[in-house]
């Protein structure tokens, strides 16, 4: 479905992604992890067409990204930046229905069917009760769900989420991870999400990518990551695996 070949990108002179290749199939929950500054956000932006690669190519459904008409691509691939925050107060339903924008013509407004899609998406993330609430009255976890619904409202085939679990408490991390797993299983889409939480990623994802200085250091099923030697090499600390969970080794 998505084919990344030898992609590089630099901000001015600072390389963020270096010669990275990977392929993604349908119905996968992919966790993208790695230290801060390793290029996770940049990779997601390249896949979302927010940035264009300096070299290499990305193809979605056998067609290069640059050849996709922007709105056509936006109907199939949804992207959620790290901290989306509307400048002015908005209700959840208005936020979610704006996710239908790629389907509208230049002078076209959202119709009843778009509002239906928005309500369906809110129900899918278990946020139907938030429909008429204002974003700035919501908790962090509620906002994350509303923004996920906004992405889902376009019924994309591929979803790219930049650290959706950041700043959530542990019960919300669990809920949101379950939600992602559930959405992948039920709708057969692929979700690629950046995260720092190795344990939660390993527990829910089908596949884990670890980035290091702009390149892929590991691309494997979760068990391959959950080993002290791999953690030492990739993340630079001593860990042990207790009951399937990584914990720091006490000196």
């Amino acid at each position, binding site marked *: 479905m998505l084919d990344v070949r030898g992609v590089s990108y630099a901000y001015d002179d600072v390389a963020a992604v270096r010669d990275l290749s990977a392929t993604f199939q349908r119905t996968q929950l992919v966790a993208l992890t790695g230290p801060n500054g390793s290029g996770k956000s940049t990779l997601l932006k390249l896949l979302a067409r927010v940035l264009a690669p300096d070299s290499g190519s990305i193809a979605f459904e056998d067609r290069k990204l640059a050849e996709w008409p922007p709105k056509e691509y936006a109907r199939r691939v949804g992207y959620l930046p790290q901290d989306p*925050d509307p400048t002015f107060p908005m209700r959840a339903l208005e936020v979610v229905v704006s996710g239908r924008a790629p389907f509208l013509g230049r002078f076209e407004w959202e119709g009843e069917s778009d509002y239906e899609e928005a309500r369906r998406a809110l129900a899918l993330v278990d946020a139907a009760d938030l429909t008429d609430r204002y974003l700035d009255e919501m908790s962090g976890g509620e906002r994350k769900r509303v923004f996920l619904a906004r992405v889902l409202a376009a019924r994309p085939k591929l979803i790219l989420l930049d650290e959706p679990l950041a700043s959530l408490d542990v019960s919300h991390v669990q809920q949101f991870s379950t939600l992602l797993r559930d959405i992948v299983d039920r709708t057969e889409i692929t979700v690629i999400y950046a995260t720092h939480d190795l344990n939660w990623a390993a527990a829910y994802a089908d596949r884990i990518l670890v980035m290091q200085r702009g390149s892929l250091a590991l691309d494997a099923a979760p068990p391959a990551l959950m080993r002290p030697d791999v953690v030492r090499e990739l993340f630079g600390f001593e860990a042990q695996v207790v009951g399937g969970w990584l914990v720091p080794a006490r000196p």
Partner: protein
Amino acid sequence: MGKSALIRPLLLLAAALIIALAIASTFGTTAVSWRDAWAGEPTARTVIFDLRLPRALLAALVGASLAAAGVTFQTLLRNPLADPFILGVSGGAACGAAVTTAFGWARIPGVVSLVAFLGACGATAAVFILARRREYTDPTRLLLSGLVLNALFSAIILIAFALSPAGDLTAALRWMMGTLFGATWSDVVLLLLFLIAAMIVLVFIAGDLRMLAFGEDDARSRGVDVERVKLIGFVASSIVTGAAVAVSGIIGFVGLLIPHLMRLIWRRDYRVLLPLSALGGAILLVLADLASRVALPAAELPVGAFTAILGVPFFLSLLRRSR
């Protein structure tokens, strides 16, 4: 919701604007009546058709231009404190006007307006070029460039005023404070053309502009050509602001206050706020100009003061009642 949400407030504001225009052309320091004017009585005709009506219409057009530019700047810069003058448009215009005055050319009809308009366009272009890097225009750099250029313009204005012929200073100061005194039908037609052109352009990009509410990356990922939309939006709103400033001087508060007022009342996105702000700005400025004419029997007060005096209490009461 959707498009139909626009119709009711639009009709409401349009009706209010017509009433405001009728009041503004009926009342003034001279007692004349519409009936006499229609009957052909010369004083009444002159006062109503040549003085009050073009002045009220020009006030409406200036208010609409500033409010439309204001809501566009707030959306583009994602900054609630943005107003039409934030990127140096007013500074450039005032600078042009002040320098013209210093050279003693201010008495030639039309020159101040023309130079002010050129100053506004020049300032906008300068700010844009300063802020652009790697084919990307960063909103923070835009704001900073505007701020710095405005400081430079203030310096030039002070020097120009110090060198100006004393007799021309009163007119120059009045222009700086903003005034609709001396409005002509040709001003009305000229600004109407600018406003229509700008509104067509802004309506054309309105759907893309509202997607900027969630940030530029988000908009890009949804297929919006963000750089193009920014450029078109900035140029259209700067030019219409420059045209408004050229005919009326610098009238504050309308462009900042009205978009927030509309947002507090109707809470909708840019596509709705653009036409509502234009109408709201028109109403506010027509009423403010009327107040500035009739508040004192012998003197005209600055209209910019009345936009604040009329607008601020209304705004504050709304703000208190909102969440």
